[in-house]
């Protein structure tokens, strides 16, 4: 993305915040990669890996959840585009939509958990259950983390602060069109969370 006016020269030529978030995401790839590979190995190799019938997995709900996360990803990137253009109301609207969709995802997930548990897919009931709750649970924690990050961005951009240097357009917070790096970083993280779900969905529900 185009760098902002305030971007300082760094030894790497990349803003330190961006470098940091990409390194963090690389370590996250390893975290999820480890769990996903062991899932694949056990699913293909273990003689006692029973997969519940598709009707029990609730594919339609998971598909809706995929749409919810994809939509939240596009609203996040539109929020970034809005703040780059200095459009405050569009930025606030898109970011709020992203947050709302994140909560919808968690709500649907909670309903799914409740339903699956009642149907006998439990954490210690089977290998599939263990993997299902570990993988989606870890992903759910990341969604919660993203919600916290995005909430901070929303609050920091809308509530007045000393650093606020509004140019008469109502940008009174510490995040403004001139200082919007953190919006980009929050976006990177949020898209990664979406990306992980895109991998988990076929692995757990479709194949």
């Amino acid at each position, binding site marked *: *993305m185009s760098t902002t006016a305030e971007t300082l020269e760094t030894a*790497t*030529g*990349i803003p330190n915040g*961006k*470098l940091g978030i*990409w*390194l963090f*995401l*690389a*370590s996250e*790839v*390893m975290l999820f*990669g*480890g769990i996903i*590979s*062991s899932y*694949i*190995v056990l699913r*293909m*190799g273990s003689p006692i890996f029973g997969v519940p019938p*598709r009707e029990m997995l609730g*594919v339609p709900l998971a*598909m809706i959840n*995929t*749409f919810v996360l*994809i*939509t939240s*990803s*596009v609203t*996040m*990137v*539109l929020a970034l*585009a809005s703040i780059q253009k200095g459009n405050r109301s569009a930025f606030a609207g898109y970011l709020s939509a992203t947050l709302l969709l994140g909560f919808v995802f968690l709500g649907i997930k909670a309903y799914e958990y409740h339903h699956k548990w009642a149907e006998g897919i439990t954490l210690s009931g089977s290998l599939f259950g263990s993997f299902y709750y570990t993988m989606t649970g870890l992903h759910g924690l990341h969604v919660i983390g993203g919600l916290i990050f995005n909430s901070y961005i929303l609050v920091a951009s809308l509530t007045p602060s000393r650093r606020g240097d509004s140019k008469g357009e109502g940008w009174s917070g510490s995040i403004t069109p001139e200082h919007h790096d953190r919006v*980009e970083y929050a*976006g*990177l993280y949020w*898209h*990664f969370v*979406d*990306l992980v779900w*895109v*991998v988990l*969905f*076929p692995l757990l529900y*479709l*194949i």
Partner: protein
Amino acid sequence: MVKTYLAVFAALAILTVVTVTVTQLHLARPVAIGIAATIAVVKVSLIALFFMHLKSERGLIYAIVFIALVLVGLLGFILLPDIAHACAVCFSSQGGAPGLARGFYWGTLLLLALPFFLVITIATAIVLAAKKKGSHV
């Protein structure tokens, strides 16, 4: 820019519908897995390239992503079911070739001896160098 985002969004939505629809066709399992994996890779690439702006990033960011992907690839390879199920010390009991077990043991001993050999060599070299220097003073 906004148009690109919306186009990517449309592509992601369509691919989601496609990947779910394909599972209803009851294809042969390897084919189904292949299609699901391909669609997932395309979707992940779309998100990374356009939403995460990887497309317009510079070398260092690519290097970080590349290292992560290589390590995950290695992980997947190491954990391949065939390898995971192989039993390194079952040569003799599984009816392997005669002498294989003995070769395995000697190999282990050799590998164990190697670090000791290296450390001793380096230590000797350092001691000799120090002595030589001392004699000159």
